[in-house]
């Protein structure tokens, strides 16, 4: 094999990972593309947990609402943050029908049968709607994190995110890949990277030529189908344009305490590292919109259990229920630690990262098979929610009303999201 080809393919490979020189990662440096920001930006993050939580022990008592509520057993590790979070009950998606799809429509609220003759349809997720505005000034419009495998109760999709066309958005599925994408610079010279992007454009131009010459000869149904191909090419063109803009800006490095994650970290440790990476990404303003579709099977394994996530989710009294409750606690523990870090990390304007982010944890699955009353915890000061309360909404309030409220609360103008019928006014006092 000639050396030139291996180099070229290395360059072209989207996963061309470059080890981060350790010296560079020491200390916090900031290279912002835009002028220094006076005020900290708004950020949004969503954590999808797959199979829902234990019905009796995770959800707070519905008779204790407002500020006077006792934290439930499943949420108890979050007690120290009780004043800074909101638990909301009775939100749901009216079109939900898949008892194993905790994430597919969680952020979208779509009706999978909305298009006749198709067995699957989705719409834009709230994070991507937010990213259209919040993502303009950062290197990464949004960052999607996920995990290997797909048996954790999430359902179809590559991440929690679905684009404007309702197509799945891919994710970084392990901490090492996420670390490199966020913080490692390419060692390839600038001129070469520019030339490479130019070649990518010419390739796209070529395949478009073929698609255009085909389109005119097709039936209307087939034209609509081929339009997915055109849209995909357009999406890549937009991404290339942004890459070009940021080509000469080195990636800012995270806090020195965050080192390159080891390969093959699983379960609880995997989530903890991903949380640290999310904090670091916000800290250096690499992106303002993050989603994380979390592992569950490997979490259970790392807790020493041999029951699969799916089997656990069908809990009845006994081993599986005990495990389900332990898992709830573990999830809350990790979230509490995440919040600790967000509170401890300063933002550009001296406020805390916590004050400017809206962080939501939940799933489309309530517990066992149930799809009503989706578990929902919101924290962070980004959208002006008056926290510290337990809100029990009227039954079957659209979950999309929450998504709309969070968008508007974060300064994003939107009249609706999914099947929303309006904002949840109670959130804001």
């Amino acid at each position: 094999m000639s050396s030139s080809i291996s180099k070229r393919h290395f360059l072209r490979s989207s996963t061309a990972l470059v080890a981060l020189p350790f010296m560079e990662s020491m200390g916090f440096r900031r290279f912002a593309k835009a002028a220094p920001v006076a005020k900290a930006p708004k950020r949004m993050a969503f954590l999808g947990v797959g199979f829902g939580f234990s019905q009796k022990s995770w959800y707070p008592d519905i008779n204790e609402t407002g500020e006077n509520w006792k934290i439930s057993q499943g949420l108890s590790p979050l007690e120290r943050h009780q004043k800074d979070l909101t638990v909301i009950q009775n939100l749901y998606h009216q079109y939900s029908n898949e008892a194993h799809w905790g994430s597919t429509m969680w952020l979208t609220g779509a009706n999978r049968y909305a298009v006749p003759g198709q067995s699957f349809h989705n719409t834009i997720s709230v994070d991507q709607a937010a990213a259209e505005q919040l993502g303009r000034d950062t290197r990464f419009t949004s960052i999607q994190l996920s995990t290997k495998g797909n048996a954790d109760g999430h359902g179809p999709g590559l991440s929690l995110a679905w684009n404007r066309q309702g197509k799945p958005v891919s994710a970084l599925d392990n901490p090492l890949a996420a670390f490199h994408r966020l913080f490692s610079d390419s060692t390839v010279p600038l001129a070469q990277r520019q030339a490479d992007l130019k070649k990518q454009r010419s390739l796209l131009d070529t395949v478009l030529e073929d698609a255009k010459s085909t389109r005119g000869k097709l039936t209307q149904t087939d034209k609509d189908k081929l339009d997915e191909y055109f849209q995909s090419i357009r999406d890549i063109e937009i991404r290339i344009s942004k890459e070009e803009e940021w080509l000469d800006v080195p990636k800012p490095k995270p806090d020195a305490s965050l080192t390159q994650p080891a390969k093959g970290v699983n379960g609880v440790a995997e989530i903890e590292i991903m949380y640290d990476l999310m904090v670091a990404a916000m800290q250096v303003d690499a992106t303002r919109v993050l989603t994380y579709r979390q592992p569950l099977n490997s979490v259970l394994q790392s807790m020493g259990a041999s029951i699969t996530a799916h089997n656990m989710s069908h809990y009845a009294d006994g081993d599986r229920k005990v495990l389900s409750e332990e898992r709830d606690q573990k999830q809350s523990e990790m979230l509490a630690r995440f919040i600790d870090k967000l509170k401890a990390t300063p933002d550009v304007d001296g406020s805390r990262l916590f004050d400017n982010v809206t962080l939501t944890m939940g799933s489309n699955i309530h517990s066992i098979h149930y799809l009503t009353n989706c578990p929902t915890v919101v924290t962070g000061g980004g959208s002006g929610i008056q926290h510290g309360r337990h809100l029990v909404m009227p039954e079957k309030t659209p979950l999309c009303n929450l998504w709309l409220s969070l968008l508007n609360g974060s300064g994003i103008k939107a009249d609706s999201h999914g099947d929303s019928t309006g904002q949840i006014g109670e959130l804001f006092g």
Partner: protein
Amino acid sequence: MNIPQAFYPRLILAAYSLGLSMTLAVAADSGTGAAMPEKHFAVLDKYCLECHDSLSDKGGVNLEDVSFEIDSVESAELWQKVLNVMNSGEMPPEDEKQLTTEEKTAFLKDLSDQMVVAREALSDTGGVITMRRLNRREYENSIYDLLGVRVNAEDLPDDANAGGFDTTGSALFFSSDQFEQYLKLGRQAIQKAVMIGNKPERKQFRLQPEVSMNQFIAKVATRQQEQKDQAEAWRATNGKKTPADFGFIDENDLKFHERVYQQQGLINLHYLKSPYIESGATLNLTFNGSLVPKINIDARAPRGEYLLRIRAARLPGASEEDSFLEYGLVSPSAQAGELELLGCRKITGTIEEPQILEIPISVGEEGLFQFGVRQRAQNNRESMRRKFLLTQIKTGLGPEPSLWVDWMELDGPLDQEWPPPRYTQLLPKGVKKIGDPDVYAREVIERFAKRAFRIKEPSPAYIDKLVEMYQADIAEGEIFRVAIQEPLAAILASSGFLYMIEPAPTESGQELTDLELAVRLSYFLWSAPPDEELMRAAEKGELKKSERLAMHTNRLLDDPRAHEFISSFAHQWLHMERLDFFQFNYRNFWEFDDSVKEAARHEVYETIHSVLKEKRPLADLLKADHVIVNDLLANYYGLEGVNGSEFQKVSLPAGSPRGGILGMAAVHAMGSDGERTSPVERGAWVLRSLLDNPPPPAPPNVPQLSRIEDKLQPARSILSAHMEEAQCAQCHQRIDPIGYGMENFDAAGKWREMEVAEKVGNRRVVASKEFPIDASGELPDGTKFTNYFELRDGVAENSANFERGFTEALIEYALGRPYGFSDEALRERILKRARGKNGEMREFVLALVQSKPFRTKK
């Protein structure tokens, strides 16, 4: 893997959401055939109308004038709401008058059945086929056909869509991520195809385990013995000296080494005492998994076909069950003893007369270069270790090994045509003496684009742009064989290759061109492009003639590539994805390891394939006096005297429960959760796959039967609780009894007379109880049966339903669109023709291929 679709069927109707437009649903005008029996108006009148009439209109729901014909999206949505709230117990409200159990059961049963009918009708596409892109299988096969290179496309979506087939165009989406994957895979494939180098030299790699493995074990054992001796010496001092004096960190460290000796040292020493390891190795289970002699080959070894030779024997006293040798790839991340399995062979040689296995193997496609063998075991370290511990607890040692391996050898690449034929096709002049490079490059690009596009002629402007890409690289100083790659890879990411393009007809239902028909046919039966013979026939216009079309269909069906159709179709038609959902526990199902699971899966495919090959009736799948199994599965089924890892026809003794699809281990395992049988899953599967009587989807938000789970009771009495609630009873009364008839097969398909209910706590069985099995039940048509054999006969008598369900699935798979209401006439024509020919499976395929819908574009 994703959680089972078929397992928890979807609740909702397509109709539920068809609110936007009904332009495609032709059936809507002509009536759906779905109607609620008028008698149920009494229920509405008695329990609903007080709040939900036109006057009160509570919750915006008015049932007063509701149409009992479920013939529109609106009425379907309304009826679906009624079904949902009654299933969940929301309506009638608690403080209102409640339906009697009989009323509720009858009402819900009729409604959920009618909604199934309505859904089918309202999602009818009226015969319109949406253009599809190649699914993952077709993509892999098409690349192989073009370049002779196998790509690893596992990062592409697997395209298995909820309920439907992976050929359904409307469900095969495209995204920018996918485009980039296609580009990446295309570049890899083109690089492999172009950069072939010189003809690789044939080489032999050899392993003598007594040199590598046994010496290593001896080294470890010596150290373990020494440390144990040191610990003993310290104990003899009665605390007068410190553990540090004997080389330990502290007392804990010392105790740790004592434990290591007990758990592992003794085993290692025992292994080394074996008379068989002077030359070779025995294949033991160990504290850490399994002993796996591994053969390493150079990571730069040329890919190609190799022979793996193994000299092996079974040890005296070994049972046949344990005399199977598994071989596979060793991935760097695997835990001790785990393999990426490639196969399993029965060892019949003895220590006196060992045998030499010769196994063909492809090297280098997976990027792994270490091959290992092991005595068959469950393919995960934890299970192997626990199985080992079960014996160690009793004897202090592990289970005795059954197999011995003298040496292993990997020999290859075997002789092959050089340069490979696909290379010559791609680059007829090679890459060196090529004349004018620009002219040659254009030739190469244009010819490849034409082949890759199958039907569509690549436009001149497109070819120009591809050539420009080549020239840009040349201008940068690249050599020909490098510069030619990027445009070729771009072709593999172009719509002309990725989509099955059939231009719009000028009139409705216009006949396909011969070429288009050839492509449809080969992707239907091979999931791959047409071969040269079919292309030639198409060019000569032969396929317009019905008998020539039939001839070619038969030719394709007789080709080994038709196995792709059998396995892909059967996997989806019979919802076999469930076979991979659960891990079977080592304690009760040690024998149901990955090799048996694969054999069980292939039994289904091979049995169907044999019916096709031997021109036998489709209904033979329901009951037969033989099975198609290999030596491993024969052993699992307790059939003696079967040798050879290939699948073969084996006659059954009288009274055998095997023979026919209901007796297959794969089917039983699919109807379990890896621990216990699930009569519900089994019953629903029989209704769906064999009787063409699919039960309505399981509704969400129905109360669980949690209160009785985990109690020591037979499955049958646990499920009897379904009959207590009307919401459950309406469907389960026809599902569960069929499942009861299969209770003599345990979760992994072994025959049993008694059912054992266990309660497990902390990985230990804390209580268990045995119950005799009651396999009596009833089929939906009222036929009663008292045992499994009568159930099998009862199902076999319903072969007309089986043929109907098969036909509908075949239409859906072949045409790449959901089976719809408007396909009924087509289905009946196919059935009529096939039944006129003894119901032969092949006749169904022939009838479909020659039908108008298969030969036309709408």
